[in-house]
């Protein structure tokens, strides 16, 4: 495992952005005065599988949307792969799977993938190979030409994941990629995430499943727009003196609100 799991804040005047595919500093976002993200400082190293956990409304999705340039931060800074957000040139190196799936239900899986391949200017041969690989991973090879509207909820989820990965991005944001996916296939997903990671890809995902969080290199616990704790699953449990991440989260939340 060559993952660069380095979480302490860089010393010196100029932080080394290149070491951190995801770098934010005091990132803040409000909706009509309601704070959604409250000064988030994220440093996510290359090849890291980073899991964001936290209850609904804790700011996970909003933070990702700000990073993807879909929402404008109120204050603070963010860089992805060294480029300031909102991105221009690095967009082609990043993949994003939104929570709401956002795939065209009036197109087939193949046509959805083809659209993204076109938007990322992939050449047809590379796309063909890539498509086969992804369809195998999401176990939908025989449904390639089915309209998305004819698929089950879990299948749509898998198709949406494939769209985020079609251009072989270096950095991927997956907002709840495993919701509604059955356990067997979820295991397959995680195997694939680990393969991506070994290939030097950085993955940021959100999840509600604590057993999944356990499989991440680094877990960031979010509550009320803040990172209340961050570290390897092991260190988080040790720090809280608990035997599972769920209790650890409750412990950190209790300490935080004191």
């Amino acid at each position: 495992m060559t993952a660069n799991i380095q979480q302490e804040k860089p010393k010196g005047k100029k932080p080394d952005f290149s070491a951190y595919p995801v770098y934010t500093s005091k990132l803040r976002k409000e909706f009509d005065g309601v704070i959604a993200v409250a000064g988030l400082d994220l440093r996510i190293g290359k090849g890291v599988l980073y899991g964001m956990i936290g209850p609904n409304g804790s700011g996970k999705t909003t933070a990702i949307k700000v990073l993807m340039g879909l929402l404008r931060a109120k204050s603070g800074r963010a860089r992805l792969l060294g480029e300031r957000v909102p991105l221009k040139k690095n967009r082609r190196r990043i993949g994003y799977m939104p929570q709401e799936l956002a795939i065209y239900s009036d197109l087939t899986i193949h046509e959805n993938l083809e659209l993204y391949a076109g938007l990322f200017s992939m050449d047809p041969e590379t796309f063909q190979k890539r498509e086969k690989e992804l369809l195998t991973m999401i176990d939908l090879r025989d449904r390639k030409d089915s309209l998305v509207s004819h698929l089950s909820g879990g299948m749509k989820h898998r198709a949406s994941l494939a769209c985020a990965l079609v251009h072989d991005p270096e950095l991927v944001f997956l907002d709840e990629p495993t919701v509604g996916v059955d356990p067997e296939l979820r295991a397959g997903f995680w195997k694939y995430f680990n393969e991506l990671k070994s290939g030097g890809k950085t993955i940021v995902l959100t999840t509600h499943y604590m057993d999944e969080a356990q499989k991440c290199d680094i877990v960031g616990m979010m509550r009320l727009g803040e990172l209340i704790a961050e570290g390897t699953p092991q260190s988080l449990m040790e720090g809280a003196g608990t035997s599972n991440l769920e209790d650890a989260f409750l412990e950190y939340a209790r300490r935080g609100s004191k």
Partner: protein
Amino acid sequence: MNSRRVMAVSRKVLQSLRHDKRTAGFLVLMPFFMITIFGYTFGGEMKNVEVYVVNLDEGSPNGTVSDLIIAGLSSRDTLDLRLVNSVDVARQKVADAEAWAAIVFDADFSEGVMTALEMLRQGSPVVPSVVQVYMDATNPNIASAILSELQRSMQIVLVTNYNLVPPITVSQDSVYGEGAEFIDFFAPGVMGLAAMMVTFILSIISFVHERSTGTLDRLLTTPVTEGEIVAGYAIALGFVALIQSTVILVSAILLFQIQIEGSVILALGVILVLGIGMQGTGFLLSSIAKNEFQAIQFLPLILFPSILLAGVFWPLESVPAFLRPISDFIPLTYAVEALRSVMIRGWGLDRVWPDLTILVLFAFAMLALSTYGLKRRR
């Protein structure tokens, strides 16, 4: 602007239409039904208008004038004549709305005409002979058709049988639209109307859908730019508008034998520019509609002024003066005018450029505003 990304967006729009067989069928059949229904209702000449004739004329030594007039009327198919003997019966038919008019020749009609002719030859004052017409003038078009048929037939009788040449003759020589029927006048309008309706509906619904399902956001996280998305849609929907216009043109030519004097390519070009502009309008309005239902509410708002004030079925001159400024702001007004000039008058680009320029400016403004509207979201 990257053409591959633009084409990826265009292809996606057309693919989803292809999967939706019903919508695809609607896109082709709707213009066909529009032109067919409008064509058969409004188009062509008036035919077989039911009219009762009561001929009480007792004639004169020089012949029976009323018979000649009636023969003249029967030789054409505008009026469908029913001869009866009783004035009351004929008038009752009109009163019961079973006939549009009753034409009555009195007993001394021929005698009166002969006397009048004699006096005319002598140069003395003339007492005209009278034909009575009881008319249901509910439909002014029918009323004027009946009167003009009658006038025409009387003129012919006087000239051919009595060598009486009316002092004034009208020599008709049309600059444009020689032999044109009403359908030739409104077919260009229907083409424009169909193109604008469909591009507007498809664009506003697609974009409301793109916004509400999150696909638009997702597109914006890829390297595709706002301008490329707008351009991709414009190309796809412009293509749809062209197909529709072709359906209309072909059906109007086959079913109604409309005449096309100018360049078909130029006419289709006008449609394309209008379609692109309306696509942009739909895009813009999609940002203030929260769902498909709200989007559909814009349709009558756009449609009715366009049908009524853009000169599709009635000439612009018949629009009341205080409403004319609205006509000037409706893009369809310029499209219909340009299409009519090309298709009926046979004008080329050298003469329709002012209308076309306005349409091009409108299309550019809409595309630019759509792009700007998308950029503002980031």
